[in-house]
C-alpha cells in the first residue's frame, strides 16, 4: 500500500513555492480558498491573491484580463464550477484569445464524495478537451501535482488542471518529471494495456497485480495529459499489446476513453473497453465506495481486461 498524501495540500504548498520564485503569479479564488488550499499563498502574498467571493464567471474573465497584461493567473474553484459555471468565460475570454490562464479544477471527479452529485465533477474533461487552445492535465498524486504546478506555470497558454480533493496514494518520487503531452509506461506487459489517468492509478496497479497472478501481463500507461494526447504512446501500446482498457474517474463519454478511441480509430485499432462512470449522476457517500459503485472498482478493471483479451483472441482468429 502506497503512502496516502493530500493532493490539495500539496497543491497549496506548491503554489506558495511558485509564488516565491515568480512575481507574475497571481492567484484568484472564489470563496473556497480554505478548500482549494490557496489560503497558503493568500497569507504569504496578500497583494497577489484575490478572493472574488462566489463569482466564478467574473473571476474567470478577470483572469483573462490579468493574463492579457502579462500576469500568470491561477484560477481556483471546484472543478465543476470552473468548467461549467465559467465555461463560456473560458471559451470566450481565455481559450479564444489563447491567454496564459491556469484553470485549477479542485475537487475533481467524485472526490467531493459526501457533498453528492451537486458538487461532483464528472464531465469537466470532456468539456475542456473540446475547447481549442486549452491543454488538459490530470494529477495522479501529490508529487505529480507539485510537478504540474511548476510545469504548467512555465508553459505559455491556457491549461486546465484537474485535482482530487482527498488523500491519494503516492506513486511518483521527486525525480519524476512532468512533460506536457507525454504519457508514462509504469509497468511492462504484453497481453494488454491499462491506460489510466488520475487517481485511479492505484486501482489500476492493483488490478494489474491481480491479473499477473492469473498469468495475464498488463502494461500500464499513465496519461497525465489528455490534451494534447500522446498519440504516439497510445499507438505503440496498441500495436505491441493489441488490447486496451482505459480507466478514468469521469463519464465514459468524452474523457480519456474517448481520447484513446479517437487515436486508435485513426491509427492501429484494437479492442477497447472504457472504465468510468456510465453516463449517470452519482450520489453522496464514501469516496472509495462510490468509485466501486459507479463502475471503477478493481474488479471492474479486471473484468474489462479479460473482455478485451477475449476480443483480441477473436479478432486474431478471424485474420
Amino acid at each position, binding site marked *: 500500500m502506497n503512502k496516502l498524501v493530500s493532493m490539495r495540500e500539496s497543491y497549496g504548498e506548491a503554489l506558495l513555492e511558485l509564488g516565491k520564485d515568480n512575481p507574475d503569479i497571481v492567484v484568484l479564488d472564489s470563496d473556497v480558498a480554505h478548500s482549494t488550499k490557496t489560503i497558503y499563498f493568500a497569507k504569504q502574498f496578500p497583494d497577489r491573491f484575490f478572493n472574488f467571493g462566489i463569482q466564478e*464567471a467574473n473571476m474567470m*474573465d*478577470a483572469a483573462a484580463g490579468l493574463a492579457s497584461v502579462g500576469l500568470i493567473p491561477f484560477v481556483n474553484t471546484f472543478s465543476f464550477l470552473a468548467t461549467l459555471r465559467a465555461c463560456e468565460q473560458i471559451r470566450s475570454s481565455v481559450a479564444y484569445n489563447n491567454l496564459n490562464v491556469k484553470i485549477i479544477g479542485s475537487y475533481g471527479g467524485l472526490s467531493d464524495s459526501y457533498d453528492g452529485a451537486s458538487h461532483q465533477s464528472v464531465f469537466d474533461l470532456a468539456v475542456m478537451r473540446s475547447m481549442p487552445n486549452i491543454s488538459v492535465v490530470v494529477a495522479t498524486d501529490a508529487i505529480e501535482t507539485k510537478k504540474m504546478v511548476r510545469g504548467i506555470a512555465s508553459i505559455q497558454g491556457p491549461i486546465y488542471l484537474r485535482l482530487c480533493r482527498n488523500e491519494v496514494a503516492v506513486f511518483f518520487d521527486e525525480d519524476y518529471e512532468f512533460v506536457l503531452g507525454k504519457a508514462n509506461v509504469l509497468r511492462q506487459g504484453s497481453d494488454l494495456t491499462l491506460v489510466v489517468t488520475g487517481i485511479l492509478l492505484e486501482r489500476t496497479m492493483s488490478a494489474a497485480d491481480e491479473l499477473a497472478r492469473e498469468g495475464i501481463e498488463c502494461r500500464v500507461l499513465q496519461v497525465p495529459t489528455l490534451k494534447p494526447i500522446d498519440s504516439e504512446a497510445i499507438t505503440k501500446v496498441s500495436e505491441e499489446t493489441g488490447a486496451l482498457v482505459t480507466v478514468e474517474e469521469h463519464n465514459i463519454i468524452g474523457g480519456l476513453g474517448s481520447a484513446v478511441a479517437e487515436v486508435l480509430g485513426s491509427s492501429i485499432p484494437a479492442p477497447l473497453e472504457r472504465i468510468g462512470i456510465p453516463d449517470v449522476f452519482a450520489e453522496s457517500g464514501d469516496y472509495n465506495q462510490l468509485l466501486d459503485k459507479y463502475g471503477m472498482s478493481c474488479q471492474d478493471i479486471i473484468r474489462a481486461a479479460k473482455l478485451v483479451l477475449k476480443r483480441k483472441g477473436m479478432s486474431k482468429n478471424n485474420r
Partner: protein
Amino acid sequence: MAETLTPEKREYLQKIADKIRRNVLEMIYKAQSGHLGGSFSVAEIVSVLYFSEMRIDPDNLDWPDRDRFVPSKGHCAPAIYAALVLKGIVEPEALSDFRQTGGILQGHPCMNKVPGIDISTGSLGHGFSVAMGMALGARLKKKDFNVYVLLGDGELNEGQNWEAAMATDKLFLTNLTVIVDRNRVQLDGPTKKIMPLEPLVEKWKAFNWKTKTIDGHNIKEILEAIRWAKANLRDPSVIIANTIKGKGVSFMENTHEWHGKPPNQEEYWRALKELGGQEDE
C-alpha cells in the same frame, strides 16, 4: 492630452465620428451583414476615445503602458474598425473584407486577428470583468494606464456585469472607466420592454460607483466625462451616455429593426446621403 477642447478640435472629433458612421454603413452594406444601430450610437464615444483621450501609439501597438479599450458590446465592431483605419492601425483595404472568409475583420473584434484590439469580445457580459482584470493588472505591474470599457445597455441584462461592479469597488480600481451606451433599444425591442433597467443610475450608486449622465452624442460632454472619470481617484466611475440607436440616419433611429439588419441598395444611398456621404471622402 488634457488640452482644452477648442472649437476646432470639437469639429475635428465630430468629423471623425461622421466618417466612422459612413464607414460603418459601407462595411455593413458591402458585407450585407452586421450591426448598424449599435455602431452608430457609439460613433462619438469611439471618436473621443481614439482621437483624444486614449494613450495609444499606432507605431507601437504592444506598448505595455498603453490605455486599454474593451468594447464589450462587440457588435459595434464596425465602428471600432473604422476608427482603427482612420488611426492608421488597420489597412483601409481590410474594410471591404469585413465578415468575409479569410479577412481579418471578424464579425466581432478578435485580438489575435485585428491589430489594435486589446481583447476579443462579442459574447455579451464578459468585457467588464476582463477590463477589471486589466485594471488590476496595471496595479500589479505598476503601470499607470487606464482601462475603458464600453457596455451596451441591453448588455446590462447579463448578471455578470453586476458581479464586476461589486468586485471593482472591492478591489478599488479607479483606473477603470465604464461607459454605458444607453440607446434604450436591444435586439428584440425597447430595453424598457425586454428587461427594464431603471432606475439605472441608482443601481450603479448602490454598488458604490460615481455616476455621470451625459448626452452620448455631444463631443464636449463625452470628453469632459472621461476626464472627470480619470480624475476621480477615489471611486470607480461610470458614464451613462444617453444615445440614439441608429443615430444619424432618420429611418434607423430608435428602432430595434436596424439592430442587425443590412440595408438594401436604396436604403444604403438614402442613409449615405443623410450621413453626408460623398462630401469629403
